[in-house]
């Protein structure tokens, strides 16, 4: 050692107990812990808020609160709880159909970008998809209501004529389907278009992460590209795809504007996706009835919001369970 300014400790071997880099470590740990706590606190705060605000409606056994709300009509089978049932059904039906349409399409697009398209095209497409994800839902809603629906209605007529025996496409009791196309199916299609970018973006990333080693293992065994995808890409991306779908479902369940602008609302437990005025969703119902609601109405609407919150929670838990069932085989070790 030629310099004398060195502290004595560095001349010796570094003692095992020295915590030389602990400052950065502590700061980072602090930041991430804070972030986690904030998230949890927000969640708790929202849940608490919803509960408190919804309490009058939730505990309204005498029907006192409900009697002050114009859209609650117990004598017509539309008590608050029955209403919630219809709306939950509508929400889940429309979201489920949307996902049914969106998921395969998204996987297809993501695969095309990650494994089929030439690199230039793939980049352009990927960029485009990300852009689509950024379009506000009002725009989708407007486009759906003005441009898409008139195109879809004749197609619905055709489908219900030839495939009416499938309950989803069956006409209403009077043998007709909506003449305007403002039906659950249109809502589901627009929702699907809205969630496709999200599911695609996440799925594409997951597919791109597939280890080359696994892809080459499949190819070297004489797998075609599709077989390679089935052997290496899908199994590897499975949990990611489920996660992406849940992300899409989350958006679909809570999406307001698109459905709000497209659906002719109604209350029923009908599976007929082409039937006029048969469905509504919780989010769209809240948006439609909030502005004119009195305090009882607000409480009841928030109770409906709470129901949506719970549904979303359940769906997510179910998804986690599905994924964790085969965690052993996820390859993440």
């Amino acid at each position, binding site marked *: 050692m030629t310099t004398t300014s060195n502290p004595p400790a560095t001349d010796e071997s570094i003692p095992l107990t020295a915590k030389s880099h602990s400052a950065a470590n502590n700061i980072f740990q602090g930041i991430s812990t804070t972030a986690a706590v904030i998230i949890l606190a927000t969640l708790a705060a*929202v849940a608490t808020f919803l509960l408190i605000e919804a309490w009058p409606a939730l505990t309204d056994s005498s029907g006192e609160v409900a009697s002050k709300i114009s*859209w609650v009509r117990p004598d017509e089978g539309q008590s608050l709880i029955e209403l919630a049932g219809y709306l939950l059904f509508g929400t889940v039906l429309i979201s489920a159909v949307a996902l049914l349409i969106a998921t395969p399409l998204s996987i297809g697009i993501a695969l095309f970008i990650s494994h089929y398209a030439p690199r230039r095209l793939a980049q352009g497409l990927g960029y485009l998809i990300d852009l689509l994800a950024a379009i506000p839902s009002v725009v989708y809603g407007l486009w759906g209501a003005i441009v898409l629906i008139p195109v879809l209605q004749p197609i619905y007529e055709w489908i219900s004529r030839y495939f009416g025996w499938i309950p989803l496409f069956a006409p209403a009791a009077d043998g007709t389907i909506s*003449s*305007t196309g403002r039906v659950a199916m249109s809502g589901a299609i627009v929702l699907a278009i809205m969630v496709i970018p999200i599911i695609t973006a996440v799925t594409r990333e997951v597919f791109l992460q597939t280890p080359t080693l696994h892809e080459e293992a499949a190819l070297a065994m004489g797998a075609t590209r599709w077989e390679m995808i089935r052997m290496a890409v899908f199994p590897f991306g499975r949990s990611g795809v489920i996660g992406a779908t*849940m992300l899409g479902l989350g958006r679909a369940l809570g999406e307001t504007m698109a459905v709000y602008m497209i659906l002719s609302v109604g209350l029923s437990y009908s599976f007929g996706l082409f039937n006029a005025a048969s469905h509504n969703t919780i989010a769209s119902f809240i948006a439609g*009835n*909030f502005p004119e609601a009195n305090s009882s109405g607000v409480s009841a609407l*928030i109770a409906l919001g709470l129901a949506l919150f719970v549904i*979303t929670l359940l769906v997510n838990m179910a998804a986690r369970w599905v994924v964790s069932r085969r965690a052993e085989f996820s390859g993440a070790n």
Partner: protein
Amino acid sequence: MKIAYRAGAVLTATALTFALAACSAENEDTTDEATTGTTTEETTAAEDTADDAMMELSGSLNGAGASSQESAMEAWRAGFQGEYPDVTVNYDPVGSGGGRTQFLDGATSFAGSDSLMDEEEYALAAERCDGDAGAIHLPMYISPIAVIFNLEGIDSLNMDADTIANIFNGTITTWNDEAIASQNEGVELPDTAITIVHRADESGTTKNFTDYLAKASTTWGQDASGDWAGAAGESGQGTSALVQIVQDNTGTIGYADASRAGELGTVALKVGEEYVPFSAEAAAAVVDASPLAEGANGANDLAYELDRTTTAAGAYPLVLVSYHILCAQYDDETENALVTGFLKYVASNEGQAQAASAAGSSPISSDLSAEITAILDEIAAA
């Protein structure tokens, strides 16, 4: 376990959406004072002409309520602020219910409302307002509601209230039904199915339309309701969507603010023995012909019980009347001057003309305008 984090993210995102919606939902008053600012001069000379006092106006005036008044309010604000550059008028079109709540909470100085206060709200108003006089309604915005339809080549049809009620409760299902045809001799009616279009959201338009059906017809069989309770049909959120649906589909019939009827066919209502198409004068006439509501808060509370069954010549009973709700007494001089000043402008012929050109509303009659001005002068002078 990547999914665990993703799932968490979904939840949080949803939760935040709720939080935001909920926050905006709450309408909590952030300011105790609805008005801020000062009158530069003590209004010592109360017996002076009101104009002199108003020359000195400055400060900001906050209101909230019915979205039906939104475009008219824009015009009123612009006009009033043009005359008094130091005044800022804010109006939040949160909806009638929200507007009344904010007013009763003391967050705003006045409310815009498509419907009248109920008993409970009158009681709350008595607490909220200075003195014992509580709050009053002043009809400031009259808008005829048109029954609009889309049939090729037909611009106008005559219908009585029973026929309209039967169409909207699903009893009459085709356009060439005898009930319609008999009132429209010489009009070639197609055998197209009737598609009803109603509002999906709760609205003052629906409330007034169903109020008309409930009172003027014998066949509606329901009470007035802001939330659609008639036959299921197509529905749109807000006036624009409803009009859009009617425009895009032949065979449809709906109801909307008359200023939005555009090229669509409209229905002339049977009043007495005549059929009256909507017009500004016809709409104002029914208000003049209507009595005040039973529960009204004294003579200054111009809360009308609209006479939907009027037989007054040339009256069009399917109207929406939107009120300004204000206190009968404001102890704060600034607030008093701002509220009465602004509302007097709104009720003036000039203000009503502004609204008519901006929002297509029907000006209140000059008699009513004078009556309102007198009431406001009385409050200003107190």
